[in-house]
């Protein structure tokens, strides 16, 4: 097996949800030893089952890590956390500032323990400024970063998808920055402290629109699936239940190809659709006519037909398409991991293989590895016994006293 990129690097990970565990997983997939500490004193049950009726987020995020139970509300837990930090190259967390203070893991405290540590902190909102004490749900942050305003139909409500959008951005930025900090440490021996507020991770997404405001005082609004440089450009209904294709004609070549593909019906020669500017102006009429044709087609066949003539087109993937699509299968997209017995939730008791998200970076020399998803606290003995060299009696004592739980 090839050595991973982060072989020999140890990461201490303390965090919930996605923003912290996901970069931990990416680092683990490249050989880092990621020690994930949670405590059964404060498990968020919803993350193991529900609010979704099926499945759970946590197993995906735990793949390939070492799992320990550590209660940092207990002073001994805080002491042990510091021991782990001394042995780690990276400390990543999304605990609140208040919790970090309570657990004596503030940046100052951590630096005092290990001056050359790389610490990456993902506060949920902001640490300074007017929003300092504000709260947010990850899935709603798209409203604050301007994305919801430009998503949806022009006569409808702003849309969010309900997923933790900013978390995913934050996770990849975290990996980018940690990698840079590791490089810096290698060259200079210095540690780095990085703050990556979850809210800010989404703000660059609307960079062009904000620049348009600065430059032109123009405010972008929702335009459904329309595009200022293409027409037709949208999602069109197809045969079957909730089946849609997408078609985009940016150039005259795309448009001519599209017309040929659908058999050059009379209406394509209408003066309303002669140039791109005409087609954009009359997009409402055009969309109705395109839909009349697509309604009689299967979505996947529309894609194949259009792609044969090199017109940008696709179809809206449902869950079944993500799992079973021929292209993703040939790319070996979904990886398999072994789910441990889920402790609670609707799938409590399920144990066995499960497809899991891969890391969408295909390296030629260092392919990503996928460990199994572990159970808490299955690595207590390894981490406390072998790594921290605690004798078994001490581990037992601290477990009984509610520290290693």
């Amino acid at each position, binding site marked *: 097996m090839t050595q991973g990129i*982060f072989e020999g690097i140890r990461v201490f990970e303390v965090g919930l949800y*996605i923003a912290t565990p996901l970069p931990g997983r990416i680092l683990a997939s490249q050989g880092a030893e990621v020690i994930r500490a949670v405590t059964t004193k404060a498990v968020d049950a919803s993350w193991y089952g529900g*609010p*979704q009726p*099926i499945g759970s987020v946590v197993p*995906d995020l735990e793949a390939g890590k070492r799992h320990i139970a550590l209660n940092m509300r207990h002073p001994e837990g805080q002491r042990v956390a510091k021991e782990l930090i001394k042995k780690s190259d990276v400390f990543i967390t999304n605990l609140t500032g208040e919790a970090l203070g309570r657990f004596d893991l503030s940046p100052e405290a951590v630096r005092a323990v290990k001056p050359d540590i790389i610490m990456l902190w993902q506060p949920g909102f*902001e640490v*300074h*400024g*007017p929003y300092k004490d504000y*709260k947010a749900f990850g899935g*709603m942050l798209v409203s*604050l*970063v*301007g*994305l919801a*305003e430009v*998503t949806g139909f022009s006569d409808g*409500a*702003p849309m969010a*998808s309900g997923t933790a959008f900013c978390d995913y951005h*934050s996770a*990849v*930025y975290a990996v*980018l*920055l940690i990698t*840079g900090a590791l*490089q810096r440490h290698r*060259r*200079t021996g210095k540690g780095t*402290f*990085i703050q990556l*507020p979850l809210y*800010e991770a989404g703000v660059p997404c609307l*960079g*062009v*629109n*904000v*620049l*348009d405001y*600065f*430059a*032109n005082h*123009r405010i972008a609004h929702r335009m459904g699936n329309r*595009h200022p*440089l293409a027409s037709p450009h949208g*999602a069109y209904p197809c045969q079957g239940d909730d089946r*849609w294709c997408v078609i985009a004609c940016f150039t005259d070549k795309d448009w001519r190809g599209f017309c040929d593909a659908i058999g050059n019906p009379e209406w394509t020669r209408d003066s309303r659709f002669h140039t791109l500017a005409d087609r954009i102006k009359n997009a409402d009429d055009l969309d109705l006519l395109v839909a009349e044709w697509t309604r009689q087609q299967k979505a996947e066949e529309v894609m194949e037909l259009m792609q044969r003539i090199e017109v*940008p087109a696709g179809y*809206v993937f449902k*869950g079944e398409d*993500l799992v079973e699509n*021929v292209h993703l299968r*040939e*790319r070996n997209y979904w990886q398999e991991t072994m789910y441990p017995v889920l402790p609670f939730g609707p799938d409590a008791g399920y144990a066995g293989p499960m497809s899991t*998200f891969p890391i*969408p970076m*295909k*390296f030629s*020399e260092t392919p990503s590895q996928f460990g199994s998803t572990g159970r808490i606290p299955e690595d207590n003995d390894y981490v406390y016994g072998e790594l921290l060299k605690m004798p078994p009696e001490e581990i037992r004592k601290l477990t009984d006293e509610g520290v290693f739980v």
Partner: protein
Amino acid sequence: MSLEDVNKETLFGYYRILELADEKGVYSGNLLGGLGADVVKIEPPGGDKTRSWPPFLRDEVHPEKSLYFLNFNTNKRGITLNLEHEDGREIFKQLVKTADAVVETFPAGYMESLGLDYPVLKEINPGLVMCSITPFGQTGPYRNYKACDLVNMAMGGFMQICGEADEPPVRLGGEQSFIAGSYWAAAAIAMALFYRETSGKGQYIDISIQEASIPFLQDKLVHQHWALAKINLGRYGNWSPAIMPWGGFPCKDGWVFIGVVTPKEWDDFSQWVYDWGGDKEMLNAMYKGGTYARASYVDILGRLITEFTKRYTKEELFTGGQKRGIVVLPVYTAEDIANCSQLESQQFFIEADHPVAGRLKYPRGPFYCDDAPWKLRRPAPLLGEHNEEIYCQELDISKEELALLRGGGII
């Protein structure tokens, strides 16, 4: 400040990246450049196609006034080069000798057709990291499919779960799939360069924008719903079917998102609504409780809450709710973000002067790192702005030769 000092103060100041990227990869160079890398953007002699993308400064169509190009190409130097010409390809190979990484967004197979694919470049520079970003990756039946953000969003699964229940699927505004592909590419390049430091080996990275977009769905468990229970998730609009309030509400000057989950949050929220003139019905004991307690009352409560929110502005609801510990988030427009007091207090937008576009403000990287801060070192390059600097000073091409190359359409 010496180069040594500059390198210590950045995370990627040690590296030179050659960027041959259009909209599918510009943000990767932008990120690495802001973190200190020397990013050299190589455009065809006629300029990158995104120089003709709107919006334009004062709506003046001009290759130096595309706000799209200006936004994504800060912190890069710019040169022109015609890879379709054999002499151009030879010059590219010279540049590769001293580069650490190449990022490109050409269709799969194009670089190979030019004799500039990874096996060739690796011979020239064994430590090179080469990263290709394409809509569907370098392999697989769709690898040569034509795409755009709409197609990426559809085939990344996102559109299926975005929109109203009885309406068509809708994509995210602002070409988000390109952002995703680019930041995965930037992270991958950084990782490969880190690996090279100890192994001495470069490598090739294949980024598929489709694959980079699918993770947006992770916490919706879309693939698990199918794999475990053969359920296809769909759209249900802005409101949760079982949690109230959870979603968007129209207000006096736009919209806000509100999320109330715990019993205490509901008590505080319902009291607030009543205190601010809302219907007393909000205080009815039957609505009290945690997450799903109000599942049977979504319609009536939705109506009462909407009546309340419509009377106040985004800012009033935002600050009013947050001060009471309630999650209220305004649906910000570009104007709101530009004027946002929080972002201003954190100097999120940095001013820079561009020789043609003038003074504009650009976003910094979304993080704080006093040890190695994000720097806006230069605005987007003019077309061919650094031709002399790089070709003459680094490749020892004389000015006369440069003029000939220009005349011949090679540069």
